[in-house]
C-alpha cells in the first residue's frame, strides 16, 4: 500500500497545477478537479480490498525513517477507522465535484473554487490517514483555512459575516489544540500518536493529563459544532456554495471534530467508560442537549439551507450520544451515522443548490408560491430525508437502531425513547420542505441538468444499496472492523509500534 501518500499528494498537485493551467483555458480546472476526485475515489475503493492483506493496520514511514526502535519521522497509520473516513470523504467529494461543474456557472473565478476545493479534500484526507499529532494539526489547518475562504466564496454581505464568525471561532479552537499539543510534547517529548499513548500508559493521570484532555476536547468540540459550541455552524453552512455546504456538513465537521476525538480519546489516551465515566457522561449529556435544543430550533426555520444546517447539529448530537455510550452498539451506531449522514446530508444540500438556481431564493415561504414543478428534485430530496430520519430500508435507519439498542443495553430507557421521538421530529421538519416546496405545484416542469442528476443518482444509489446490503456487506466488512479499532483502545499503540 505504498500509494498512501497519493491521498494528499494528488489533490495538492492538482491544487498547484490549477492556477497555472487555468491561465491557458479556464475550463481545464473543471477537468483537473473531477479527474483527481475520481482518482481518489478509485484509490479509496482499492484500499478496501488491499487493507485486509496487511492485517487491518498499515504503517507507512515517510522519508524511510523507521518507526522502530524510536519513531523518528512522520508515519501514516492506515486502519479500518481511517478507511471508513477516507471512503466517506472521497465518495462525497466525488459527488460534489461532479455537481460543481455546472453549479459554478453561477459564480465568478472558477479556478479559485477548484484550487480551494482540492486543498480542502487534501486536508481532510491528510487528517484521516496521519499518525502524527503535529501533522494532524497542520492538515486540520489546511482544510479549515480553505473552508473559511470557501464559505465566503460568494462575497455577499452575509457570506463575509458568516466567514468572519466561523474563522475567529474555528481558529480559537485550532490554537487551543496547538496549546494542548505543546503540553503533550513537553510531557512526552514525542509526537507520534502511538508513542504518546505508550508514554501516557505508564504515567499516573494527574492534573496535567486532564488539562490536556479538556483543552483537546474544547478544541474538537468547537470543530464538530456540538452544543453549546454550535452557534457558528448555521451561518457558515448555510452561506457557503451548495457543494461546499454538502462537504462541510457531510464530512468536514466529522473528520475534524468527531474522527479526531475518537482517535485521540480511545486510541491515544486510552479512556473508556470504566476509567473515565464522568468524561463520557459529559459527552452524552451534551449530545442529548444538542439533539433536543436544536431540533426545536430547526422546526422554526424558514430557510431551506438553514434548516438543513441546524439539523446537522442534532445529528452530531446523535453521534456524540453513541460516543458517550461507548458500548459496542453505541460505537457501531456512531460510525454508521458518520457514514450515512455524510451521504444523505450531502444529497440534501446539493438539492438546495439546484432549487436555489431554479428559484433564485431559499426562503421556504417564497418557494411555496413559486410556479415551477421540480418533481425530480422533490423525489431525490424526499429519499434523502427519509434516510436521514431513519426510515428503513435506507442506510440512515441502521445507526438510529443501533443507538437505541445501545441505550437500552446501558439500561437508559429514557434515552432510548428520546432518541426515537426526536428521530420522528427529524422526519417532521425535513418533510416540511417536501410539503411546501415540492408538492401540489402547478406550472412547467424544470429541466434537470445531466451532470447534477448524475451526482444525485450516485448518492441515492449509495444510500439505497448500502441500506439493502447493510448486514451483508457494510457492517461486517467496514463498520465492525472500524469499531474494533475504537474498542481496542490503547492496544493501537502496541500494534503500530510492532509493525
Amino acid at each position, binding site marked *: 500500500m*505504498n500509494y498512501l*501518500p497519493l491521498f494528499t*499528494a494528488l489533490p*495538492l*498537485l492538482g*491544487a*498547484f*497545477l490549477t*492556477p*497555472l493551467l487555468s*491561465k491557458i483555458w479556464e475550463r481545464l480546472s473543471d477537468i483537473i478537479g473531477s479527474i483527481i476526485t475520481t482518482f481518489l475515489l478509485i484509490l479509496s475503493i482499492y484500499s478496501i480490498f488491499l487493507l485486509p492483506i496487511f492485517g487491518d493496520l498499515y504503517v*507507512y*514511514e*515517510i*522519508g*524511510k525513517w523507521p518507526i522502530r526502535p524510536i519513531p523518528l519521522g512522520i508515519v501514516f497509520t492506515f486502519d479500518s477507522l481511517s478507511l471508513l473516513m477516507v471512503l466517506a470523504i472521497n465518495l462525497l467529494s466525488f459527488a460534489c465535484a461532479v455537481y460543481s461543474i455546472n453549479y459554478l456557472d453561477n459564480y*465568478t*473565478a472558477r479556478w479559485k473554487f477548484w484550487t480551494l476545493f482540492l486543498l480542502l479534500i487534501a486536508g481532510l484526507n491528510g487528517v484521516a490517514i496521519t499518525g502524527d499529532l503535529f501533522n494532524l494539526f497542520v492538515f486540520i489547518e489546511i482544510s479549515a483555512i480553505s473552508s473559511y475562504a470557501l464559505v465566503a466564496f460568494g462575497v455577499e454581505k452575509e457570506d463575509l459575516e458568516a466567514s468572519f464568525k466561523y474563522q475567529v471561532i474555528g481558529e480559537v479552537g485550532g490554537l487551543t489544540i496547538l496549546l494542548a499539543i505543546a503540553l503533550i510534547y513537553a510531557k512526552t517529548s514525542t509526537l507520534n500518536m502511538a508513542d504518546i499513548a505508550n508514554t501516557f500508559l505508564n504515567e499516573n493521570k494527574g492534573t496535567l493529563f486532564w488539562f490536556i484532555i479538556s483543552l483537546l476536547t474544547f478544541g474538537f468540540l468547537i470543530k464538530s459544532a456540538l452544543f453549546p459550541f454550535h452557534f457558528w455552524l448555521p451561518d457558515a453552512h448555510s452561506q457557503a456554495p451548495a457543494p461546499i455546504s454538502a462537504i462541510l456538513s457531510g464530512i468536514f465537521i466529522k473528520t475534524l471534530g468527531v474522527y479526531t476525538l475518537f482517535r485521540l480519546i480511545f486510541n491515544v489516551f486510552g479512556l473508556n467508560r470504566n476509567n473515565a465515566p464522568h468524561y463520557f457522561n459529559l459527552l452524552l449529556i451534551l449530545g442529548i442537549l444538542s439533539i433536543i435544543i436544536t431540533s426545536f430550533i430547526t422546526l422554526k426555520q424558514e430557510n431551506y439551507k438553514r434548516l438543513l444546517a441546524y439539523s446537522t447539529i442534532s445529528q452530531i448530537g446523535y453521534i456524540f450520544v453513541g460516543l458517550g455510550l461507548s458500548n459496542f452498539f453505541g460505537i457501531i451506531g456512531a460510525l454508521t451515522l458518520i457514514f450515512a449522514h455524510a451521504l444523505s446530508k450531502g444529497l440534501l444540500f446539493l438539492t438546495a443548490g439546484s432549487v436555489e438556481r431554479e428559484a433564485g431564493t431559499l426562503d421556504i415561504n417564497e418557494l411555496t408560491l413559486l410556479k415551477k414543478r421540480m418533481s425530480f428534485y422533490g423525489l431525490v430530496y424526499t429519499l434523502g430525508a427519509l434516510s436521514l430520519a431513519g426510515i428503513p430500508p435506507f442506510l440512515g435507519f441502521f445507526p438510529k437502531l443501533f443507538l437505541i439498542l445501545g441505550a437500552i443495553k446501558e439500561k437508559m430507557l429514557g434515552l432510548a425513547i428520546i432518541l426515537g421521538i426526536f428521530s420522528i421530529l427529524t422526519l417532521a421538519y425535513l418533510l416540511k420542505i417536501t410539503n411546501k416546496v415540492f408538492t401540489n405545484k402547478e406550472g412547467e416542469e424544470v429541466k434537470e441538468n445531466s451532470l447534477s442528476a448524475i451526482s444525485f443518482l450516485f448518492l441515492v444509489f449509495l444510500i439505497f444499496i448500502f441500506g439493502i446490503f447493510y448486514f451483508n456487506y457494510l457492517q461486517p466488512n467496514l463498520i465492525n472492523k472500524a469499531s474494533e479499532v475504537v474498542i481496542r483502545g490503547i492496544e493501537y499503540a502496541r500494534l503500530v509500534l510492532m509493525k
Partner: protein
Amino acid sequence: MRGMTIIVKTITKLLVGLIFLYGIYIITHGHLTPGGGFAGGVIISASFILLILAFGSEEIKERIGYIYSSIFESIGGLLFVFIALFGLLLGSYFFYNFLPKGKVFMLFSSGIIPLCNVAIGIKVGAGLFAIFLAIAATRFIMKE
C-alpha cells in the same frame, strides 16, 4: 499607490539589491546557517514590497506583478511536491532523501534539503508578495 520622498527613494535604490541578495543567501545556506526557505522567501518578498512602498505603483505594474507572483508560487509548490514524489519513485518512500549527502559544511550537501529550501523560498516569496499586492497595494486587482 503613491510613492514616498526622494530620500526614501534613494535609500531604497541602494538597499533593495542588497536585501534581495541577502534573501538568496539565506535560502541557499539554509542547511548551514540559521534561516532557510521561509525566512529567505519572506526577505525576498520584503524587497519587492519595499520597492512598491517607496516608489508607488500603477495598476498595470501591480497586475503584472500579481500574475508573475501567482505563477511563481504555483511553480514553487509543484517543485516541492515533485521533490517529495521523486523520493517515492526512486526510493519507494515519500520524501525519501534520494540525493547523495556530500560533506558537512559544504554548500552542496545534505541531499534534498537545499533543493527544498529553494522551492519553499520561491513559493513563500511569491505568495507573500501576492498577499501584499492584494491587501495593501491595489484595491481590487482582479475584476474577473
